[in-house]
């Protein structure tokens, strides 16, 4: 795959060609040009993220230049943008986690916490560490556990108020405003992928000592700021939702809709987490889930998870 048709004009500086310029053979000149462009317009990098989906390159770019190997992240980004051109009902988002590549760094967990501004006690994507065997025949494995976004989600029919449902792209969503916090969905999830937001904040016991430390009032600005789950804005105020609600991984739906991969995928240092549209036969995930070494958690329950593991 090449970037021939999609390379932007030099005046249109992006993060990608900025870095590319730094690393490439004409690094110095490109870097100077890029810095000049940034100095003229410091918001240009951010503006890139706000481009409409239609303007995204449909082909993956190679950081090694035209014709070079393409990072799977680039490929998945291009596939994501391609999928976004389709009607939403024609997409089927799946996640593939290659357990042979996961090194247990927990970067995905932390990036998820940061992306969704998760408070203490709320985690969407823990990484389970497994050890087995008897010395010297021992094994160790790391199993990231996001929400499985089941095709037959046991958490959905048990909700008494219809506050959780599967959207047309297959993501199991929450309606925080409707949820009454009965936690029935939590008991019903076979993967313990739902958690309760008990209302804690990281800074709640921090003292105030103005001029001496960064006290609570300033320090908690960050965690009081809104997250953007489900495309809405949820500032952390008092006991307002999502405090008191069940919460869960949503494949960073708010990022997907903007053409960005889920935070856990982007930050996976081993490229162990793949994401894409399984309805696209040319997508990386579609090819991966057709492999014989693929498995899903607790398949015997018939939940049909959309998270696959390569073993």
């Amino acid at each position: 795959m090449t970037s021939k048709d999609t390379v932007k004009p030099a005046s249109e500086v992006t993060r990608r060609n900025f870095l590319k310029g730094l690393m490439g053979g004409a690094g110095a000149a490109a870097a100077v040009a890029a810095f000049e462009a940034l100095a003229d317009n410091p918001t240009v990098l951010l503006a890139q993220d706000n481009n409409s989906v239609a303007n995204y390159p449909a082909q993956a770019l190679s950081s090694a230049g035209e014709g070079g190997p393409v990072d799977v992240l680039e490929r998945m980004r291009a596939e994501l943008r391609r999928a976004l051109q389709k009607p939403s009902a024609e997409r089927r988002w799946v996640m593939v986690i290659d357990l042979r590549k996961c090194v247990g760094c927990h970067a995905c967990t932390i990036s998820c916490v940061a992306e969704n501004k998760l408070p203490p006690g709320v985690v969407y994507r823990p990484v389970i560490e497994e050890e087995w065997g008897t010395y010297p025949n021992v094994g160790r494995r790391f199993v990231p556990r996001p929400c499985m976004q089941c095709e037959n989600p046991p958490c959905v029919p048990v909700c008494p108020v219809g506050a959780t449902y599967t959207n047309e792209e297959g993501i199991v969503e929450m309606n925080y405003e409707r949820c009454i916090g009965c936690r029935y969905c939590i008991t019903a999830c076979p993967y313990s992928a739902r958690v309760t937001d008990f209302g804690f904040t990281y800074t709640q016991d921090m003292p105030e000592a103005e001029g001496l430390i960064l006290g609570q009032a300033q320090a908690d600005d960050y965690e009081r700021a809104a997250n953007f789950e489900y495309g809405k804005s949820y500032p952390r105020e008092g006991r307002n939702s999502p405090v008191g609600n069940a919460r869960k991984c949503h494949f960073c739906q708010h990022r997907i809709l903007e053409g960005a991969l889920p935070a856990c995928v982007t930050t996976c240092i081993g490229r162990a987490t793949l994401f894409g549209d399984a309805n696209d036969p040319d997508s990386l995930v579609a090819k991966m889930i057709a492999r014989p070494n693929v498995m899903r958690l607790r398949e015997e329950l018939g939940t049909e998870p959309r998270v696959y593991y390569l073993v």
Partner: protein
Amino acid sequence: MAQAVASPESMSPAEGGRGAFKLRWTDIFIVLGVILLIVGAGGMAQRLTQGLAPTNLTSYVPWGLWVGFYDYLVWLEVGSLLTFTALFYLVGMTVLKPVKPVVLFTGFTVVLMALIIVLLDLGHPERFWHVLLYPDFGSMITWMVWLHLAYLIVLALELGLTLFGNERTEGLMKWLSYLSLPMGLALIIVSGSIFGVIATRPLWNTASLPLMFLISSLAAGSGLLTLLVVLFWPDKQDEQYRQIVQRLARLTSVLLAGGVFAAGVIGFTMLYQGSGSPVRAEGINLILSGPFAWSFWIVHILLGVIVPLVLMISMPRRPLMVGIAAFLSTVTFVAVTLNVVIPVLVTPELEGLSTAFVDPKLDVNYVPNMMEWMTLSFIFGLGSLFYGLGLRFLPLQSRHQEVNHD
């Protein structure tokens, strides 16, 4: 109806005139209620200001003490009313009429307590009305809430007609009672189904669980009915009283023994690991030999089943002994509901999850803390105070004395 031969004890303060306010034994409920309210005020204050955060509930053990007590109260309320209505209207045991008002009032009080407990267990109790406005009838909880509220209304009407009705409302009263039978049955079955339909929890996910809820509810309710007869029967010297107590003791014994037998058969089947579920067996073993096995063996089996059975079978014509047996059986049934709810949830669904991301609220261990007990104390205080005030100011006992002296 004959004029009441109202003893001073049965008169309300208004009837007794100024200065005739005398303490009755039933005022112990008022005193107890006030004590429990004081003891529990701190817990309730925490619940109201901090939500569920101060509880020991976690994301992996989302239900605990309060849900266990909720189910217990549902068993008591529905079981006692089902037993009473079946005996009174279906078996024709109309001699129970003197205790009818107090049985209905007890059931009404227990329903209210149960609803308050389950309301406080919600993360957003202020949104409880969502279940009425946006109901999803695919959920067992929706059915439970609707049935419970409908049951409360029927019960309130029954109670109102019993207390303030006359001969003309007898027919309506009878139909309401008939209506309460299928409603009560449905409520118990739905309460059991809330757990029974959860496929991922093997110990819950059995077709027998809702039926076990029904049997247990009848056993617990029969015990409560027996206790109410012993406590509130107007003429304790009456031979009829001993006969009724004897019959109720027999019924409670049969239900208790039957319930234990059925639970035993189901338990042994689940423990068989040849082709059964190891997770299911693990859950049973946790109940039988886990850290809280004492609640099963000592509280439920010994104090709730064996001692009551011995007392009721060996001394069925001694109301005091039967009353003690019924009290023990009724009170200790809570160990059953707690053992239904908690051990299943503390059995992790995925091994290693609680150490994958460490936080007190991501733990699979659960023991109710002081705040949870205090909140419960507050709710029982409310219930006890309401009950005591009802017994003092409503014609619950004077009416049955009228009837008895007919």
